[in-house]
Structures are given as structure tokens and as C-alpha cells.
């Protein structure tokens, strides 16, 4: 408390992308929707959001109380612990419509489950980021999303030193349903990231019974 709104620089590079001056919502009537950008730590969620967001990426610090048993166990410490988890988000105004789309970076570990209830509520769907070097890390995320009844697409974030697989091999490694879209994307590239969101949106339309 007591810090000014512009004083939160942690975790951000010392570039212009600082949450200083608020970027207000349009005064005209508009609709707001959100999509989750989910994945394990360090997978590029924040990069993806920063690439597409028209406002400097913001974050809320969510305070989570959890029973420590089972999680990071410390000898003799089995009481409740509180964990602070930063949720990054950004927004972009869609063209030729009054819709403002929010992108919420959502941590993929099951121990962050309490945060999911809130963040997933009302989401249109989710984009799961995956890394070919650690595909297993993405299973937990996909489970969490499926449990919430959300539809999703998978974007394999391209890291230059990661092994390149055939897409069909990746699909079977990730055990994806036939209808779940999978794209390769570079979270640093706007066009590529936009394509991943488009693949997700087209999937959401067809899942809702419409034709894209």
C-alpha cells in the first residue's frame, strides 16, 4: 500500500512498457470479452500478451491461501501458506466491431487452481502455449482447461534451440483430439501470434455450432 500506481516496475524490462498512465476504456458503448493464454512458467505467455496488447501489459497480484501439505513441503511446516501469483494481462480492440478482447496469462500448475475459478469465469476459450522441449508440462494445463469445460487450441511457441517435430508427431505426443487446432507460433511476432488467436477463434465458432 502507499505506492503510487506507476511504481511497479518489477519483472518488466526497462523499456517504455510501464503501467504509468492509465489507458482508459472507450467512452462509447462496447463489449468486453476475454481469452486465456495458458501454459507452464517460462513458456512465453507474457511475451505473447505483450506482442498483441495495445496497452502496456498489466498484472494483478493474486493472494492465494493454500494448504502446504503436498505442495512444496518444508519440514515441520504444514500450516496454510499464502502465495502471491502475478497474473499478467493485456487488451486489444478488435477491428470493425465494438469488442475489446482481453488476454489473461494463466499459470498452468494445478496448485494455482483457486485462481482459475475467477480467471476462467466468462472466458471465451483458451490458447495453450506449449514448448517442444517439455511437452509434458502442458498436460496439466490442458486438464485444467478441460475440467472447466473451456474449448482450446494449442500454439507451439517456437524457441530456436528447441527440437522441430512434425506436426502430426506433436499432436500424438500431446494426445490432442482430432478437432483441437494446433499451430506453431512465435510469441514475439505479431502476425504469428494473431494467427494463433484466429485459429482459436475459428475453433470456438465451430464448437458453438456456427460456421466460421
Amino acid at each position, binding site marked *: 500500500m502507499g505506492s503510487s500506481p506507476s511504481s511497479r516496475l518489477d519483472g518488466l524490462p526497462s523499456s517504455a512498457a510501464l503501467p504509468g498512465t*492509465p489507458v*482508459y*476504456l472507450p467512452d462509447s458503448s462496447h463489449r468486453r*470479452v476475454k481469452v486465456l493464454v495458458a501454459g507452464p512458467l517460462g513458456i512465453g505467455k507474457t511475451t505473447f500478451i505483450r506482442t498483441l496488447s495495445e496497452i502496456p501489459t498489466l498484472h494483478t497480484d*493474486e493472494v492465494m491461501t493454500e494448504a502446504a501439505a503436498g505442495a512444496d513441503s518444508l519440514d515441520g511446516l504444514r500450516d496454510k501458506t499464502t502465495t502471491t501469483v502475478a497474473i499478467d*494481462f493485456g487488451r486489444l480492440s478488435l477491428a470493425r466491431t465494438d469488442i475489446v478482447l482481453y488476454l489473461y496469462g494463466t499459470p498452468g500448475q494445478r496448485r494455482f487452481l483457486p485462481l482459475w475459478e475467477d480467471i476462467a469465469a466468462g472466458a471465451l476459450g483458451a490458447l495453450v502455449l506449449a514448448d517442444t522441449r517439455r511437452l509434458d508440462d502442458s498436460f496439466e494445463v490442458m486438464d485444467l482447461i478441460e475440467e472447466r469445460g473451456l474449448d482450446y487450441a494449442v500454439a507451439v511457441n517456437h524457441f530456436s534451440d528447441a527440437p522441430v517435430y512434425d506436426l502430426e508427431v506433436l499432436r500424438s505426443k500431446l494426445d490432442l483430439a482430432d478437432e483441437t487446432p494446433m499451430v506453431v507460433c512465435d510469441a514475439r511476432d505479431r502476425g504469428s501470434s494473431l494467427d494463433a488467436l484466429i485459429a482459436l477463434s475459428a475453433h470456438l465458432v465451430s464448437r458453438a455450432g456456427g460456421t466460421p
Partner: protein
Amino acid sequence: MSRREPARRRMVPSYLAAQGTESPTRHSLQSLTALRATGLPAQPHHIPGQLRMLTLLEGGALSVSETAAYLDLPVSACRLLAAQLIDDGCLRAEVPLPDAHPAARPSPDLLKEVLSGLLALK
């Protein structure tokens, strides 16, 4: 047991001191609900966190998530503070999708508009 300790400096975060101000309004505040100032000034019982919120929102509307981020508050605390300001008439809450039932699944038409809006950004 009396809880009146008027001259003591508050030793807990202000959002915890909001006890007794709980309002059912906070349950209707989603992360994408927009908060907009009505122009009604703050009242004496509003706490510093609420004054900062009113100052922030003088310039325009922001979602609950954005308000929490700029004020460096957990979203749950932000909801609590905003709910009282709404009940007191200082803020107005605007739902994310005016024509949709809050619990409804997104309509195919809305999803199509999202898709075409994204395609038009290319």
C-alpha cells in the same frame, strides 16, 4: 466488546479494514466489469484505497482487473472497495456483455464477431 479505537493508527492493510462494508454487490463484479465514476464525491467513511480508486477513475472507465492493477490491489480487495463505492453511488458498474446472461455460454454470433474482428487486424 467495543471496537472503537478512534485515535489509533491503522496497522492493517486498508482493504482488511473494510470490514463491515461487505456488500452483495461485490459478487456481481466480474474481472471485466467496467467501473465508471458518476461524479458523486467521496464520503467521509470512504477509506484511502477508495479515494485512490475514485481519483484513478476520474479520467475514465476501467475494468475491475485494470483498476486492481493500477492501484496495486489484489482483485478481491478491489472488488470489496468498489462494491461499497457502487452502493454509495460514486461508481457505476457496467457489465462486460450488456445483452448476454452472465452465466450463458458465448453466443455463436459473438464468437463470429471476434473472429472477423481478429481477421480484420491482419
